[in-house]
């Protein structure tokens, strides 16, 4: 495997993917909360750009994932980590609902928030620290519920 093992799969490939993802967010304007809120504000001066971003992303990702599934394993790794869960349960609906409220309050979701750290904006830094706090709070709370602790912690990490 040579250069295809080790550092290439662990560092270089994910770094390249992060660069491409970040470029997509920057070019599309989705790093700007005003742009995102313009889409969510359907009762104001509506800006459909975010819908075009999603449609274009799906136009590439949907056939791309079909192609990926045809391979027994990824090019640089031993196995795929496809998300395992498929049911619509209460945590999914409640979690997505809470996320939407936070997203609507400031117009930042995790990708643009992390990318915006590059601007060293104090507001973004506070948002990311609070976001990390919310995640750790959730994981601590989950760990304190022994009944489901062993059932799915890693599945959740892989979920998205």
């Amino acid at each position, binding site marked *: 495997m040579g250069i295809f093992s080790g550092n290439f799969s662990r560092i270089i490939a*994910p770094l390249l*993917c*992060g*660069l*491409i993802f970040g470029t*997509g967010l*920057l*070019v*599309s*304007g989705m790093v*700007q*909360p005003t*742009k995102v809120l313009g889409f969510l*504000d359907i009762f104001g*001066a509506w*800006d*459909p750009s*975010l819908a*075009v*971003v999603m449609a*274009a*992303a799906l*136009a*590439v*990702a949907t056939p*791309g994932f079909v192609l*990926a599934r045809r391979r027994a394993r*990824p090019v640089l*790794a031993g196995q795929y980590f496809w*998300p395992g869960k*498929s049911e*619509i349960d209460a945590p*999914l*609906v*409640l*979690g*997505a609902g*809470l*996320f*939407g409220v936070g*997203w*609507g*309050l400031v117009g*930042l*979701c*995790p*990708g643009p928030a*992390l*990318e915006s750290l590059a601007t060293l904006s104090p*507001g973004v830094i*506070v*948002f990311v620290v*609070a976001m990390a*706090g*919310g995640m750790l709070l*959730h994981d601590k709370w989950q760990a304190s519920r022994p009944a489901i602790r062993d059932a799915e912690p890693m599945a*959740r*990490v*892989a979920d*998205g």
Partner: protein
Amino acid sequence: MANFTPVSAAIGGALIGLSAVLLMLLTGRIAGISGIFAGMLNVRSEDKAWRVAFIAGLILVPVIAGWIGYGMAPPTLPANWAVIVAAGLLVGFGTRLGGGCTSGHGICGIGRLSIRSIAATIVFMVTAVITVAVTRHLLGG
């Protein structure tokens, strides 16, 4: 629709989709940012290197763009710090409980035709639209 930018939105969206496909095809991982970031924070997680590398790539983009003359303007955020903190907590807790965010559910999940992700995307879109409607129009922004 004065602010509609369909061309840059389509180009940017295609790049996001390409990144998600490449990450899966090359490393077998889902490009869900909340999951990648949470796994980096998790002390029990042993596969931190690729997560750090991906997020470093995200943060490097505006830095490199700045070097070549396309610097990113700092995001416009609410003046109220309590709103920023509350929103961050909700986004962090909510994406963990719901197992994903705009990228993990909205792009990768729907791209895999997952009913679970389609449901999550509808729910967070609806609550976000309601939140914006209430804060901008009911409370007068």
